[in-house]
């Protein structure tokens, strides 16, 4: 049960952490990028989630890939990544010196692909856990995300559970289906946690021309203004599942972290804010500590 005010000391999958903050997938590279500043940007970081890894290399979407709107950010990266084989042979080793564990985020175009990617990742000792990103479109099913269908989510979780003994969480989508049902399905399938949630589908159109700056038109939208949407979903999901909930979305201030913990999250991810602030985790943790004093 959550205590109020929530404690900043957390436990996830058998490990204890002094901070609830996890760096979100796609906004922290593969972890090695965080060494950019002297000493690295690991203050306040409980764990890092890598960008999404797929079976084959993906160049990603044609640029531009980023567009700011008045009150938010659209991204259309297109899961750019070197593919799981390169990741295992060349990329992961660069993260071994991180002072915190790495969670590798996994995406796929078919239900089977997720477990195949995890199977290859099992060849590396670096990943502590996996995050299964079912927000990506199920190409075989008209492009709706896997995460819109509880059956699909449960099957994916089950196949992943068969190939690894490491913990994994399923990162759910807010864009289709019932997030409570898909969370339950993920747990049924063997997930050790759920991430709630991901970017929301968004679009900005130039009304003068009917064109969009981002070529895929519809993109992923993130914004501190979405925090109440994430709080609601975290609260709903955390009462429906017994596995830990990792919140993701809308965090810009220390109080946001505390609110998501109060709503039932075990850990809180920070994405867009990290892009702006390499030391976002340290800053957020500091702000949260001051609020608790």
């Amino acid at each position, binding site marked *: 049960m959550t205590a109020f005010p929530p404690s900043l000391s957390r436990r996830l999958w058998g490990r204890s952490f002094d901070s609830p903050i996890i760096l979100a997938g796609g906004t922290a590279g593969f972890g090695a990028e965080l060494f950019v500043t002297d000493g690295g940007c690991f203050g306040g970081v409980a764990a890092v989630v890598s960008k999404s890894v797929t079976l084959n290399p993906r160049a990603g979407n044609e640029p531009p890939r*980023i567009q700011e709107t008045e009150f938010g950010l659209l991204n259309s990266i297109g899961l750019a990544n070197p593919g799981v084989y390169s990741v295992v042979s060349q990329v992961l080793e660069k993260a071994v010196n991180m002072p915190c564990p790495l969670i590798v985020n996994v995406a796929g175009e078919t239900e089977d692909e997720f477990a195949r990617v995890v199977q290859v990742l099992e060849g590396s000792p670096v990943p502590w856990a996996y995050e299964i990103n079912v927000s990506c479109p199920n190409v075989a099913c008209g492009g709706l995300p896997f995460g819109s269908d509880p059956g699909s989510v449960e099957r994916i979780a089950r196949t992943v559970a068969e190939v690894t003994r490491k913990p994994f969480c399923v990162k759910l989508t807010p864009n289709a289906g019932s997030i409570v049902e898909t969370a339950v399905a993920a747990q049924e399938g063997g997930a050790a946690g759920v991430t709630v949630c991901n970017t929301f589908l968004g679009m900005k159109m130039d009304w003068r021309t009917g064109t969009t700056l981002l070529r895929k038109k519809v993109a992923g939208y993130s914004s501190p203004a979405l925090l109440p949407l994430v709080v609601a979903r975290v609260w709903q999901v955390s009462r429906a599942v017994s596995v830990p909930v990792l919140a993701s979305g809308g965090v810009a201030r220390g109080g946001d972290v505390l609110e998501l913990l109060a709503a039932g999250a075990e850990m809180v991810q920070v994405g867009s804010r990290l892009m702006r602030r*390499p030391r976002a985790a340290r800053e957020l943790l500091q702000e949260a500590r001051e609020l608790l004093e």
Partner: protein
Amino acid sequence: MAAPRDFDGIVTCVEGLCPGVLRIAVKAHDFAGEPGQFVEMEPSPDCFPMTRRPFTINRLLPGGFEVVFEVLGRGTGLLGRLEPGDGVRTLGPLGRGWRLSPGRWLLVGGGMGAAGFPFLAASLSEPPLVLLGASTSERLLHTGGDQRTITDDGTSGVKGRVTDLLGSVDLDAFSTVAVCGPLRMLKAVWTSLPDRHRHKVQVSTESRMGCGWGVCEGCSIPVPGGGYRKCCTDGPVFTGEELDWDRWSE
């Protein structure tokens, strides 16, 4: 290369160079940087805008740096309201700058693309020849030294595009051609250069950035083979041959 830091710089001087173009000096203890590197500045301490804005280092100052930028949209609009004494959250120096090879350099700049040339020119072993283009004379960002100008409206130098100046230059006299400016200009320069000079080209690129420090993969620049490199950490300066000019668009 100095590791970037995220610091609260203090604005020490704001100077209007021409309507809509400002030079801002920022005090930042121990700030280091190399020519072609850039900084990411926060337009506001508020939640919005959510991302910073990237600017080339115009000059290093003792204990600080200067940027020169054009006020275009919301971010530069907010930055344009900074006054001496204000704080501005800055991340930098970022990216990979010019590969400072020996020999004489030819600098070709269009519009705000020349904003980084003063720092570059000051770092070269020989004074470069600078070809500058702009829409009109007051918008020419002077680099100093041996400099030829051209403007769309003929108010300074000849009337025309910076590529028109290239024809009159003996490219064999230069070891490196450094180009920076709007994409259309970059392409025009690249296309107009004879093949045998293309290996000398370095290009300072621009891209819409999410982070500016390599984590988001938002700033892709196309490279041969169908892939992309990151403008922010692999660049912003690339050699001309590293780029896939055909796939490169705004």
